[in-house]
């Protein structure tokens, strides 16, 4: 069975593109969004497949992670309920989060930790994606 896709919402290309390379080498399809609005747009497109996992940065331009979560919950509660979301943040004030997410990975993170999360929610098929 194919692995489910991962959405990475992160404004720093150094981070998001590295993660993309990493997850693709592990066999996961990856979508990138530079901010919350781009992520919402992507989720609203009918061509976007069902996601297995979202990694979400908090501090981003245009729409930050906090706003993205409340928008997603308000506009697409079904997607919100069925998609595991992990916050990636260096912020100490993640306790400001009003909305409960699946989990949190602290920057700078360990790839192994991310790999475990991906394996758990998106599958472990080793076939690389081209």
């Amino acid at each position, binding site marked *: 069975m194919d692995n489910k896709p991962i959405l990475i919402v992160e404004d*720093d290309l*150094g981070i998001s593109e*590295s993660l993309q390379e990493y997850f693709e080498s592990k066999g996961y399809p990856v979508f990138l969004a530079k901010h919350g609005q781009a992520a919402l747009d992507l989720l609203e497109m009918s061509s976007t497949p069902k996601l297995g996992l979202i990694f979400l940065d908090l*501090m981003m331009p245009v729409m930050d992670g906090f706003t993205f979560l409340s928008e997603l919950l308000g506009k697409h509660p079904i997607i919100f309920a069925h998609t595991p979301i992990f916050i990636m943040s260096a912020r100490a004030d993640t306790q400001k989060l009003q909305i409960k997410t699946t989990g949190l990975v602290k920057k*700078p993170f360990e790839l192994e930790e991310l790999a475990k999360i991906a394996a758990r929610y998106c599958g472990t098929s080793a076939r690389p994606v081209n």
Partner: protein
Amino acid sequence: MNTRVKLLIVDDLKDNLLALEGLLGRDDIDILKANSGSEALKLLMGHEFALVLIDVKMPGMSGFELAELMRGTNNTKEIPIIFVSATARHPNFLFKGYESGAVDFLLKPLDAHSVKSKVNVFIRLYLGQRAQKELITELTKAKLDLEQAVRIRDEFMSIASHELKTPLTSLKLQAQMRKQKLKEGDPLAFTPERLTKMFDGDEKQIERIAHLIDDMLDISRISLGKLTLNFEQFDLCELVRDLVERNSDQFVAAGCPVKIDTCQSAVGSWDRFRIEQVVMNLLMNAVRYGPGKSIFLQVTTSPNGVRIVVRDQGQGIAVENHGRIFQRFERAVSGSEVSGLGLGLYIVKQILEVHQGSIRVESELGQGATFIVDLPRLEQKEEIHNG
């Protein structure tokens, strides 16, 4: 410390008032007189008294009635009272529970010495209390200032750690991925081209960290008043041309060619490193807020100094934000829209102020922004500190 005090004397007989005034008159005492209880109350509302001397027996409102009214009012209930009485009957029992407890009695005919010494005791007491109050006010203010400083520092630390962790996260990710590729023995992962790309990326992240740390150090120097300038004579036009030339790759890559219009030369005595920092900061802001659009940089001279103008075609700054952008941790757009510490323009302004220069912005939302720097040609070459 101000040692002037006000005394109020209340007596229905004008002669008594004059006698007391004569007795107590001193350079550092202002004596106000009231010939009735109601007049005394009026004066009590408008002045702060160290002490009130009240004749007990007055027509209309008696001295005790006046004291009762004083006791019932917040502004006056703490003021010490000396009752002046012709009867030997001790009025203490008539007037228990007076708030300050500072009630005393003088018997007529008045003895000049005892009147003076009693009044002096109360004045000293009052001055001591006043000094204490002033001290408490000062301390309360200092405490608020410190709490504010701690809040600003905490907020700064939170932003700074986020900003530092972003490039660190990127570097750490790269390192982990390279290790993994080495382990997998993938030869294609380390071709010279890929290695060059990796090192370029690493360098960029490292520069970003170094830049953030420089900004943080500048901020700490500025707040301690230790921003020091090293003056040297140089040509500002040349510096600006060099700076743009040296960094032209960056500007071209961002799609922001810099169009320079400088005069022949503008020689003066400034801190070369700091002025370079100012110009570079303004140019990088122009790139950041107006990517893909050219930047206009102009240097002109006047009899008094030099003017540097940096104009971008970016998103512009609303008029109500023109003052705010030069403050610490501020930027025109909201907190998380643009990364960085929000310190650039604050540092720029501080550097210019130590040079006795200035910076201002002309802009409207959507119309691009023009930053105008005025620098006097300083004669002195000695070190100047901020603060």
